[in-house]
């Protein structure tokens, strides 16, 4: 995965009725925890993985988030929710 982006048609949405973030996809709803939202907001097809990890590490006071972030993006890719803009 070089430059991840949300799959075509996927849209981040705040569900005000249930007070939670969701990813809306064709005929599907994926509930997201705050970390997943933070990662997916950075998956814009421009940033590469290092840039995404760097931005999140900064947000979480320099913590080493690399493995967690890469694991999360890979899991999203395996579910077809994230694709590689660099492929």
């Amino acid at each position, binding site marked *: 995965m070089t430059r991840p982006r949300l*799959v*075509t*048609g*996927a*849209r981040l*949405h705040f*569900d*005000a*009725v*249930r007070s939670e973030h*969701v990813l*809306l*996809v*064709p*005929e*599907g*709803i994926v509930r997201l925890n705050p970390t997943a939202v933070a990662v997916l907001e950075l998956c814009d097809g421009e940033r590469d993985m290092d840039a995404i990890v760097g931005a999140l590490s900064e947000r979480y006071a320099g913590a080493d988030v690399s493995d967690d972030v890469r694991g999360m993006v890979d899991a999203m*890719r*395996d*579910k*077809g929710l994230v*694709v590689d803009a660099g492929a």
Partner: protein
Amino acid sequence: MPAPRPLTLIAELSYRCPLRCPYCSNPLEIGAAAYRDELATEDWSRAFRQAAELGVLQLALTGGEPMLRRDLPQLCAAARDAGLYSSLITAGTLFDEARAAELKRAGLDHVQISIQSPDPADNDRIAGNRSFEKKIAAAKLAKRLDFPLTINCVLHRQNLDRIDQILQLALELGAQRLELANTQYYGWAVPNQAALMPTRAQLEYGEAAVQRFRERVGPALDVLWVLPDYYEDLPKPCMGGWARTALVVAPNGDVFPCQAASTIPGLTFDNVRAHPLEWIWNESEAFTRFRGTDWMQEPCRTCPLGRQEQDFGGCRCQAMRLTGDAAATDPVCRFSPEHHRVLKAREAAPDGEFVYRTMRPIADGVR
């Protein structure tokens, strides 16, 4: 206990359609005067807002053929304003460059195009309309406009043998999703049941073909296989449970817990022109009648597998049709005393002649 919140609104914008598919899920009474009295743009827009306030996130714009509504761009914009994710469920024959681009600008999120068969002549025979080339052009146009594309194919005895070609076609078209919907026996599929009922061998081949395809292609194309429930021996959680996750609004504004619910006698269905959706969902007789598990009879009430909250007793419309009692256990269930009716229905008729969908009065004896 408060009612659960719905996630999906199925908006049947019109029952008009250029296709005549013999398994259409619309009611047999689509030609009735009541259904020709279609909701106005502002009625639909209000319903979308009320649905969003109730918790709905997904909107299916369907029919009939939703492209026949001239105000479709306004409806897509209203859906987007309400915060809903919108899907257009179309046969594709009217999805031309100018109209598709207009829908894109209006905020339509996703396009689903049906095919009846991967073989052009067979597609046109099943659809009762020359439509294959237009569908393929529509799918390519949807891709060009950067819509996520779903291909939908209703499966039955007369197209299941082409399953490998269906999978290949969806891949070649660049679809993101493929819905392989084994026929459910509601609406027009009821008078066509014997012509549509697949064999067990066809279904086993089909399921294995889907599995092989998934392993080969991976997540780039998500293949959904809707279970053929007449070959199951435990019922499906129909609609995710009665009035639990979804609601259906008919072209005239009547609101149903599922597309087939109008076949259940004795239930009163309320209309969005007269009542807010919230009241219809939470309070109306039709929505509360089979919600939860309190209405269940034996054998559901003391289900030996404890599946009451998993399958919700199966499908109420199927129970009605096969046993005459909408509160009975779905006879797909092996514990139903009427399960033999499902076993009998697996026997296919030899001729395979279709009763095509029509808005004209249908011949006596069809049902």
